[in-house]
C-alpha cells in the first residue's frame, strides 16, 4: 500500500520536453537540473516549509558568515575601502607572523599554567560538596560559582590592587614574609602567571559544577561494592571516581582549550590587552586586535579560519577518544 504524498499536484513550473541541444550549454543544463530538483521536492513542499525557518536563519547567521569569512581570507580589506584579492598572500604572511606564533605559544603556556591547578581544585571542591557530611552545600556552591558571574570591571579593579607592583596586596604579603616583591604585571615572565591565577580563581567554580554533576552520576553501588571488597578511600578514588569521571574531564579540557584560545576579558583588563610586550597576548586577543584595532579583516579571517580548522581537528580527536572509551566501557 502506498500513500500519496501531500500536495502531489503537478508543479506549476513543469517543463516541456528538452532537446539534446538545449542540454548541451552549461546554463541550460543548470536550469534543467534546477527544474528537475524543484519537481522532485514539490510534492514535499509543506514539510520543507515547516523546516525552512531553521535553514533560513542558519543560512543568514551561520552559513553566510562562514562563507564570507572564507572569502575574506583571500582578500585585503579594512572594511571601508574596496577589497583587493590577494590570493594566498594572507596565508603566506601568517606563516612568518612572529606575533601570531608568540600568541599561540602564550596561549599554550597560559593553558598549561592554569588548567592543572584549576582541575585539581575543581575536583577537590566537587568531592567536598558531594560529601554526605557537609552542611550549607548550597551556600558553598553559590560562593564558589560566584567568580564566574562577577562583572569583569569589578574583577579588574580588585585584581589590579592585588597584583599592584608597589602597593599590591600580594607584594605586601610577600614583603611581610621577608620575600622579594614580584613584578606580577610588569615583567614578561610573571604576566602569564598573573593571568593564570585570575583564570583559576574565576573558572574553578564552573568546572567544579561540571565535575559535581559527573560525580553525582556515578552510582553509589560501585562505592559500596568496593568498600565491601576492602577498598580504601584512595583506591575508591583511583579505581572508581577518576575512571568514571574521565569523560567529564575530557569535556572540561575541551572547554578549557577553547576558553584559552578565545580568552579575552581576563587579558584585556589585567594586562591591558596582552602586555608587557606581547607576553600575555593570546590568540583571541590577537584576533580582536587585528580585527578591531587594525581593521585587517582579510588577514584576521585567514588566521581565524586556519586556527578554527586546527581546533576542529583537535575536537574531533577528543570526541573520537571519548567514543572509543565508551565502546570499551
Amino acid at each position, binding site marked *: 500500500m502506498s500513500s500519496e504524498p501531500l500536495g502531489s499536484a503537478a508543479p506549476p513550473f513543469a517543463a516541456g520536453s528538452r532537446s539534446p541541444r538545449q542540454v548541451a550549454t552549461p546554463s541550460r543544463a543548470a536550469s534543467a537540473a534546477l527544474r528537475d530538483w524543484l519537481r522532485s521536492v514539490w510534492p514535499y513542499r509543506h514539510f520543507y516549509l515547516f523546516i525552512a525557518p531553521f535553514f533560513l536563519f542558519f543560512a543568514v547567521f551561520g552559513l553566510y558568515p562562514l562563507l564570507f569569512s572564507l572569502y575574506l581570507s583571500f582578500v585585503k580589506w579594512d572594511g571601508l575601502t574596496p577589497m583587493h584579492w590577494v590570493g594566498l598572500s594572507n596565508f603566506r604572511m601568517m606563516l612568518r607572523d612572529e606575533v601570531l606564533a608568540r600568541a599561540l605559544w602564550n596561549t599554550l603556556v597560559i593553558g598549561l599554567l592554569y588548567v592543572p591547578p584549576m582541575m585539581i581544585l575543581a575536583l577537590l571542591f566537587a568531592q567536598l560538596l558531594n560529601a554526605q557530611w557537609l552542611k550549607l552545600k548550597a551556600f558553598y556552591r553559590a560562593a564558589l560559582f560566584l567568580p564566574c558571574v562577577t562583572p569583569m570591571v569589578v574583577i579588574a579593579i580588585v585584581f589590579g590592587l592585588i597584583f599592584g607592583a608597589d602597593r599590591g596586596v600580594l607584594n605586601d604579603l610577600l614583603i611581610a614574609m621577608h620575600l622579594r616583591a614580584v*613584578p606580577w604585571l610588569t615583567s614578561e615572565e610573571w604576566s602569564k602567571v598573573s593571568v593564570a591565577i585570575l583564570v583559576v580563581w574565576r573558572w574553578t567554580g564552573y568546572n567544579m559544577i561540571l565535575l559535581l554533576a559527573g560525580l553525582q552520576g556515578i552510582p553509589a553501588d560501585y562505592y559500596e561494592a568496593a568498600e565491601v571488597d576492602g577498598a580504601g578511600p584512595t583506591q575508591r578514588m583511583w579505581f572508581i571516581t577518576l575512571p568514571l569521571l574521565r569523560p567529564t574531564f575530557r569535556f572540561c579540557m575541551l572547554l578549557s582549550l577553547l576558553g584559552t584560545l578565545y580568552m579575552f576579558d581576563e587579558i584585556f583588563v589585567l594586562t591591558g590587552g596582552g*602586555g608587557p610586550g606581547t607576553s600575555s597576548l593570546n590568540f583571541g586577543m590577537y584576533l580582536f586586535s587585528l580585527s578591531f584595532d587594525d581593521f585587517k579583516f582579510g588577514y584576521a579571517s585567514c588566521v581565524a579560519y586556519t586556527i578554527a580548522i586546527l581546533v576542529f581537528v583537535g575536537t574531533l580527536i577528543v570526541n573520537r577518544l571519548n567514543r572509543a572509551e565508551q565502546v570499551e566501557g
Partner: protein
Amino acid sequence: MVAFVRHRRSRAIALSAAAVGVAAAVAGCSIALPDRTAAAPIGAAAPRGPITVWSWNVAAKALQALTPGFEQRDPAVRVTVDMTGARMSTRFMLSLMAGVGAPDVSQLLMTDAPHYIATHRLMDLTPVAAKYEPMFPPAQWRSCMLDGRVYAIPWDTGPCAVFYRRDLFARYGVDPARIETWDDYIRAGQTIVSRSGGRTRMLPLGVNDLESMLEILLQQTHGQIFDNQGRIALDSPQARQALDVIRRLRSAGIRSDVAAYGPEWMAGFSGDSIASYPGAVWLAGTIKDTVPEVAGEKAVWGVFRLPAITPGGVRVANSGGSVLVIPEACPNPDAAWAFVQYALCTTQGQLDQYRSSSLYPSFLPALRSSVMDQPDPFFANQPVGRLFATDITKIWRLNRTSDWGEATTYIQEGLSHWASCGMPVGEDVLGEMSRKLSERLDIPVAPSSDRVPVALAAPSTRIRTVLE
C-alpha cells in the same frame, strides 16, 4: 541506478547553485557601499532638524554643556549628545562599514583621525572649513587633512606639562621652579624618593605606558615615527635621545611601575605615593574629578612646564587631543556642520568647554581670551591656562599617517618588552623595532639620510597675527 545517481548529482548542483546564489546575494547586500550621491552638499541649506553626536566621558559632558548656547543660536537644530560606552571608535568604524547607525557628528582621537580620513567615508569639509586653517595650530590641522582637503576639525589639544603635588614637593624640600631639564627632574625625583624613604615616587611610568612618553619626547627632540613620505623613520638620533631619557627615568629609581588609569595610578592623586604626573592639559579634568576640590592657599596641586631635554631646549609637546568629524553619509550635514562650527570654530564654544571641562582649545583666537589668564584656585591660583598656551604653535608636528594607530601599538609592545627585559644597553631597540614595523605595516624603512627632520618652521605670519 544511473538515473538515481544523475538525479542526486543534479540535485547537488542545484543546491550548490542556490547556496552560492544566496551567499552572493547576502554578501552583495552587506558590502554594498552607501550611496554617496544621496548626501546633500554641505552648506547648501539652512541648518535644521535633529542631530546625534557621539562622544565620550568628559568631552561629552563639555558638548552637553554648550548645547543650550548652540540651540539658542540655531533654534531649528536639536542636538542629542550620546555618551557612548567603551571602544566608541571601533563602533563608529563598524557603523561606517554597515552604512547605517553612524551619528551625524562623532568624536575621534586626533591620532586615529588620519586612519578614518583615508577611508574616504568622512565628509569633505573644505568648502566651509578651509578658512579656519590659520586659526588652529598647524600640527593639529595637518592631522585633519588628506591631499589638501579638510575632513575633520581639531577639538581640544593636549599641550603637556608636569602636574605636581605642592604639599609633597614642599615636604621634601624640592623647588619646582628649578626644574628645567629632565636631568633636573630626575635629581629632584631622587631627592623625594630618598627623603620619603621610598614611600613617594616622582612619577608613574609603567611598562605598558612608555609609548605615550616616547611620543612626548620625540616632539622635544624633533624626531619622527614616519617621514614625510610615510616611510618608517623611527631609528634616528632624535629617537635614540628620546629613548635615552626614558631609560634614565626608569632606571633612576624614581618611577612607580603602575598602569596608567589603574587603581594605584588613580590612588596617587590623593595619597602620597606619587609626587608628579607628566601629562597633557586634559589630565587636569581627571584630577579635579577625582580629588576633593581644595582651593586657594590650601590647594595641593600645581603645574610646571615640561622639562627640556637639554638646557634651553623645547619645553612643549602635545599628547592626545580629539577632532570632530561628520560621516559622509550624514543625512543632515548642514545642521551637523553648524554644531561643529559653533563648538570648535568660535571662541565662545571653545571657552565654554574649557571652563566646564578643562578641554583646552585648539582654536587659537580662544587662547587670546582673558579667561586663559584667570588664576585657577585648584592650582593655588596659578594661571595654568596661560602656562599651557606658551609656545603652543611651536609644537613639533609628528607625521601622523593612516598607519599611526597600528604603528604605535607595535612600538608600545616593543618598548614594554625592552623595559621588562631590563632595558639592555647596546641592544639596537629602534633598529629592531623599525624592521618589525616595516614587516608588519608593509612600509619601507626610510634611508638614514632622510630621517633627519627639517628645522622647525616658525609659525606663519597669519598664525602670529591671530595670536597677537
